[in-house]
């Protein structure tokens, strides 16, 4: 579904990604784990075209996207829950959600809204509240809900568990699994490696901008070097 081939990304002269190749298959949960600063966010944002890959190929549904504008890429059927959530704090939950379905028709948006509010009853309770006044967990739900409003086939999630209480993290991971059951392909970036690998079909490990390992979620969970580096022994 999504395929990266030898992708390199730079910030000025600093190279953040080195010839990264990876693949996300239809219907799976793929996770990318790595330490802080490894380049996980860069990788995710490079897929979205911001920053742009300096070299290599990125394909979505067989179509090259590495030269496309971010807004065009994001209309092809993927949606992103970016690092730090980036909800529109001055807007209500309702307005935030409808920003997610901006390029969809009104009917499609209404239909998807119903679905999102079913997934996150909390958002329904907070429907007219400003995004900025909500708790971190609620904001994360809003960010996911907003991404889902475009009815994506591929959902990119950048550290959705960051800074949240364990019980909320549990809920978020349950939602992710539920989405997969509905047929949404998931690309999950996490520092919370244990939990991510547990629900993932496959995973990649990123170190200093290089992919150093890949395998099934289970294989990585049981790998000694992964355990040492990311799972606290």
């Amino acid at each position: 579904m999504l395929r990266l081939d030898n992708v390199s990304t730079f910030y000025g002269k600093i190279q953040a990604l080195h010839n990264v190749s990876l693949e996300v298959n239809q219907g799976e949960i793929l996770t990318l784990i790595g330490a802080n600063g490894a380049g996980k966010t860069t990788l995710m944002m490079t897929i979205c075209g911001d920053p742009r890959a300096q070299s290599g190929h990125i394909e979505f549904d067989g179509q090259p996207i590495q030269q496309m504008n971010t807004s065009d890429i994001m209309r092809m059927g993927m949606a992103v829950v970016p690092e730090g959530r980036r909800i529109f704090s001055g807007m209500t939950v309702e307005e935030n959600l409808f920003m997610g379905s901006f390029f969809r028709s009104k009917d499609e948006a209404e239909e998807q809204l119903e679905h999102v509010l079913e997934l996150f009853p909390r958002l329904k309770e907070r429907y007219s509240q400003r995004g900025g006044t909500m708790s971190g967990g609620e904001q994360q739900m809003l960010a996911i809900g907003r991404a889902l409003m475009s009815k994506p086939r591929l959902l990119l999630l950048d550290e959705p568990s960051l800074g949240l209480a364990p019980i909320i993290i549990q809920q978020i991971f349950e939602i992710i699994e539920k989405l997969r059951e509905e047929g949404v392909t998931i690309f999950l970036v996490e520092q919370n490696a244990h939990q991510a690998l547990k629900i993932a079909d496959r995973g990649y490990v990123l170190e200093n901008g290089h992919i150093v390992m890949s395998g099934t979620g289970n294989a990585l969970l049981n790998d000694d070097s992964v355990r040492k580096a990311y799972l606290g022994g």
Partner: protein
Amino acid sequence: MTETSLYILQQLINGLTIGSTYALIAIGYTMVYGIIGMINFAHGEVYMIGTYTAFITIVGLLTMGVGSLPIILLLALITAIIISSTYGYAIERVAYRPLRGGPRLIPLITAIGMSIFLQNYIRLAQGSRDLAMPALISGGIEFGDPAVFEVSISWMQLIIWGITLISMTSLAMFISRSRLGRACRACAQDRGMTNLLGIDTNRIIALTFVIGAALAAVAGVLLGLYYGIINPYIGFMAGLKAFTAAVLGGIGSIPGAMLGGLILGVTEALTAAFFPSEYKDVVAFSLLVLILLFRPTGLLGKPEVEKV
């Protein structure tokens, strides 16, 4: 009422009139700043072009024998809005968009260059002499004590208030209720994120230029008729005043621009009431300095968020 209080009332009326037009122009500065963090110094010229368009339309219609005031006014507004918006759009597209993402000083310099270019372009095309706008609307209502002081509100002033009110209300509704207005707000808060939602933010930015230009054009028609005299340099002072109003109210804030315009207009008029009228500009800009010293974000502005 005493003579002084009636006189002050008169100046308040005059000040609110000028202030509403400052507010209309100020919206363009504030919206553009709010969304791309740049001061569009050519905005005053877009206003001036609106005035010239209205002038040409009005003179043309009068020559053709059209006598109906509402039709003349409406057509003047429509043509001014269309032409100014086209300029607003073109300026952004040609001069600013290619420079986006570079150092912040560069678009600023480009904007000043654009302003000088447009001023001279109109000067060459239309001549630099003063033109007299046909006096379409005269008369008004008067009240107070004829023996003490008669306060007058001209029809033109009422028209300025009315049209400003309609324009501002439409803008407020558009921004708060419509889908595109929501996208404008989203873009002002986080342009990158708005892009990530599949929205072409270049179009939203172009839209803010068009809206700003349209409102400046409305101000151009109204002020042109109010003052009765136009020349290619009117955009400079009007732009400067409106910019002051925008900063006063808190640049980036739309209600701030409205409030800043009114406060500035009233302050000027009251200054002119008690001091030689040359002092009104001094007081206007002093007010700006004071606000910036004691409340750098302006009256309704939010603390500076770093634009990326």
